[in-house]
């Protein structure tokens, strides 16, 4: 049993680190831009500090920037240094991980896009509500720290931005990230495998409360949470639990709570958590019945939350090899790059701290050298900072087109899934089905968004073809799980028919 818990925790933490690496990297970059390019005044202006639009503006910026609940920690720390009020910093820290352009587009492919828009609006209510109440309860939370001396233009400025990330990753930010990840370990210790398969049912009045208990220590990326919210609607699970998952699962983690307490003290930090939980749970219970999809027959269980539980049973064997194989299988090339970069930040940061005893590198960078050369134009740091943030937003828009390819490319990918899943269905190969069915399902979402962002529209007819395909795929999955050969064979044919209809609708009718 202990072995299952140990290796289960290793697997869950590794998965979280792999998923978080790219968005932590973005968070470090944004923190560096705030510190070295925008400066305190520019950062305050960006968030409209001291104005009435401060909280909604924090919500809006948070919606656009692609960071997760771990990646937002260095950004929040920088905002606090700039003298932004605690309510706004915490509002941003909570919203930024909730949505990003990719997850928002994914959300619009769900069966009820209106629900996702309602969720986005509800998060604004949460964020502004929590922020306003917190600022009123604990006024004068803004404390400006001394601003670092400006760095000369050119490579020095770029190095200085990198060093901000390196220092964060070898200091307090790393500590808070580790505290955040400890929640993942806690869940894999406490929740046995498959423990949440029936907990989040609409019929369970404790579902939103239970989800709040799971989602706060859990770590999840915006996209994963959005796909889980989609799955919850597909399974007619508790809508309130879905909202709690979105707000607390993607938005908060133990590291963020620890940072809030460390920054603002026990009373204020826990006060924020209590107000947040009260508002999230109030909204969750308020929307439970009005937004429940009555037309869907609940299947009675879901595998969507298996990732928050221990991955292995007590009788599992050869766990180190299984963990290694799973990590190798899941890690994407861009995640490897991000992990390497994070590792480099940690090493460089540790080196900088060792060097600090003799010389602080930043002091050298901050020394003023000669003026600009004739062909060099000295672009003011705030202009560069604003441009860099705009480029970051631009990259995330381009990222949407890469993540959601054209229908032709999607169906090229689906050709592989089709072969794998249908043969898994015919041969009752559970492992193969469990691996490829979720991927095929995910590609249908990408198909819908890819068509929508290229053609500007997605007809209800196309939506329905994709939905029917996903539903049939779900039935096939359950038939394979239950080992019913006849039913599996029947569903192989049904899935394939639905697939060909969807394909014809998205490809042949263009």
């Amino acid at each position, binding site marked *: *049993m202990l072995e299952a818990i140990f290796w289960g925790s290793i697997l869950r933490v590794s998965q979280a680190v792999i998923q978080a690496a790219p968005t932590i990297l973005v968070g470090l970059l944004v923190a560096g831009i705030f510190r070295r390019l925008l400066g305190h005044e520019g950062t305050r202006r960006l968030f409209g500090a001291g104005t009435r639009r401060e909280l909604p503006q924090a919500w809006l910026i948070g919606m656009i920037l692609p960071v997760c609940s771990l990646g937002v920690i260095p950004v929040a720390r920088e905002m606090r240094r700039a003298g932004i009020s605690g309510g706004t910093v915490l509002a941003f820290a909570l919203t930024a991980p909730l949505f990003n352009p990719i997850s928002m587009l994914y959300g619009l492919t769900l069966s009820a896009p209106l629900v996702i828009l309602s969720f986005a609006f509800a998060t604004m209510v949460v964020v502004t509500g929590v922020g306003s109440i917190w600022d009123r309860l604990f006024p004068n939370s803004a404390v400006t720290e001394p601003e670092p001396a400006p760095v000369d233009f050119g490579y020095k400025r770029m190095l200085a931005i990198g060093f901000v990330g390196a220092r964060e990753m070898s200091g307090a930010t790393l500590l808070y990230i580790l505290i955040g990840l400890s929640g993942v370990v*806690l*869940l894999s*210790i*406490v*929740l*046995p*495998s*498959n*423990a*949440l398969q*029936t*907990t989040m*049912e609409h*019929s*369970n009045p*404790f579902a939103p*409360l*239970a*989800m709040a*208990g*799971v989602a*706060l*220590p859990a770590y999840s990326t915006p996209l994963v949470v959005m796909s889980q919210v989609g799955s919850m609607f597909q399974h007619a699970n508790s809508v309130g639990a879905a909202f709690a998952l979105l707000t607390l699962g993607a938005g908060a983690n133990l590291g963020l709570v620890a940072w809030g307490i460390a920054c603002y003290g026990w009373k204020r930090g826990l006060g924020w958590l209590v107000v947040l939980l009260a508002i999230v749970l109030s909204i969750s219970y308020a929307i439970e019945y009005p937004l429940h999809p009555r*037309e869907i*027959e609940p*299947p*009675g*269980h879901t595998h969507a939350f298996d990732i928050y539980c*221990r991955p292995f049973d007590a009788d599992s064997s050869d766990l180190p090899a299984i963990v290694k194989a799973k990590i190798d299988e899941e890690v994407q090339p861009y995640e490897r790059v991000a992990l390497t970069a994070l590792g480099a930040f940690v090493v460089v940061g540790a080196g900088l701290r060792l060097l600090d005893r003799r010389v602080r590198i930043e002091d050298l960078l901050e020394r003023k050298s000669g003026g600009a050369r004739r062909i060099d134009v000295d672009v003011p740091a705030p202009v560069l900072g604003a441009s860099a943030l705009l480029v970051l937003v631009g990259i995330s828009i381009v990222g949407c087109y890469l993540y959601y390819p054209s229908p032709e490319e999607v*169906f090229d990918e689906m*050709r592989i899934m*089709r*072969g794998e899943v*249908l043969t898994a269905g*015919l041969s009752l190969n559970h492992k193969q089905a469990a691996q490829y069915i979720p991927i095929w399902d995910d590609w249908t979402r990408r198909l819908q968004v890819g068509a929508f962002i290229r053609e500007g529209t997605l007809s*209800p*007819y196309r939506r*329905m*073809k994709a*939905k*029917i395909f996903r539903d049939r795929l*779900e*039935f096939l999955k*359950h*038939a394979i*799980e*239950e080992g019913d050969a006849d039913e599996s*064979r029947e569903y*192989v*044919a049904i899935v*394939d*028919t*639905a697939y*060909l*209809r969807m*394909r*014809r609708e998205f*490809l*042949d009718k263009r």
Partner: protein
Amino acid sequence: MRPSTRLAPLLVACAAILAGCSADDHDDHDEDHIGHEIPAHKPRDLPQAVSSIRALAREFGSAPSQTPIARDRVEIAVDVARWLPEIAGDSDLPEKEWNLVNDAAIPISKAFETIAATTGDRSKPIAELDARIRDLEAIISRAEPAWFPEMRNGRPVPRPALPAESSAGATP
């Protein structure tokens, strides 16, 4: 569902009983396993759905005006009406006709609910429902056989698994 299963995550939230939930608590999962089940009253295809709706409309229409309609019958009628877009989409019905079916689904389900909620003269909502059903029957009457290939001659038509993707049409 047993209370311990429901409350397990809540216990996590409290972090009071770290070992309060063991794998053994969930050993009965397979016995409790509830797969996706297709309700018995879900029609297999659009023609069957439309004739079910017609039959239910007749049943509602023939009920004495002072007698309330049984709740389970109303639920069945509303279910069938709401399934219309999905059932129609699970065929080769063209987009134009599917849009008509999709547009009719909510008004038909509301009409059933209105009839059930009306005590007294139900002739107006019944007439409205009848008009909607006639629109659907018109679609069925002009349907090409290829639109509902799975139910040709009233029987499911098997199709070979893994046909080439170039034959993107769904007709077997």
